[in-house]
């Protein structure tokens, strides 16, 4: 084990903690992609270039894009809801109450 392994390992753990305590979803997803990039380095250190390639393309890239897209979806949704509420101020608050 070398110093660079130490850095990568500590970095990975640090990012995981940062993702999970982050209140801002967008920030969490950016950190998630960073985690993927760092994990790519870890795979290189573990002599697994295939996994490094797959992690960069699929783990960080594609999953990151899907997550970002989902956040964009949530934001649009929230904006639309606010829009609708503003239009009908005196209408009853419609929240799509889930009954379970």
């Amino acid at each position, binding site marked *: 084990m070398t110093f660079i392994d130490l850095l990568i390992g500590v970095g990975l753990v640090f990012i995981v903690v940062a993702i999970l305590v982050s209140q801002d979803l*967008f920030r969490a997803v950016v950190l998630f992609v960073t985690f993927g990039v760092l994990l790519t380095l870890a795979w290189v250190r573990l002599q697994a*270039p*295939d996994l*490094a*390639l*797959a992690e960069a*393309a*699929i783990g960080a*890239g*594609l999953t990151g*894009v*899907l997550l*970002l*897209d*989902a956040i*964009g*979806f949530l934001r*649009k*949704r929230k*904006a*639309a809801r606010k*829009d*609708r509420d503003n239009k009908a101020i005196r209408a009853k608050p419609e929240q799509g109450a889930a009954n379970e």
Partner: protein
Amino acid sequence: MNTQLRLTLASVAGVALFALLTLAIWYHPTSTVDLPQLVANSLAETGTEHPITAVLLNFRSYDTLLEVAVLLVAVVITLALAQQDSNEALSSLEQPARDSLVIALTRRLVPLVVLVGVYVLWAGSYQPGGAFQAGALIAAAGVLLRLAGWPIHQRANLLLRVGLTLGLVVFIMIASIALVSGQPFLTYPERWAGELIFAIETVLTLSIALTLLSLFLFSPEALSSQSRKPSKEKAQ
């Protein structure tokens, strides 16, 4: 369950899991079976020089077959959940304004990404690379196009379905050749192993790229009338 209790239980579970895993890793016994050696010994008969491709598409090709089925299930469910209000979804897919810089950028970038994808596929038979990474890269090119506002969304028409299933179809057909000649399922005919593996990988790349792209394209949209801002924050 209140928040306090849930967090406490979650912490206990996490710490216990970490402790158990550390013990298990620290005290793990040394194995007697040397699988890497066995892989190296049989590599010459697999039709590929890259050991990981040999494991994925020859020794353990059955796992890969099921894995392709997993991908297909995900995309089937995506179509099932997207299609139900495809009319609404399609009408809401008003294209964000494309500026000339983005157009120019994607024009240059996308063919490059696709080219790298094809290289990764081809390289997979003797060095790191293969169908899954190549498929992901080509799908990424599609995602780039979509994010830049190119109108590549389409309906789940027959052509798309054929493309999605083609990988599994060809895989199953090649896997079944052996049954005709009385060999176990998934045995490749001698001498043709390399070519057949490459054929499987090529169609798999196409299907995987389409599948991953579909998972992105057919995600349910934020419906209803709303202010549709060009999603700039997504493009970074």
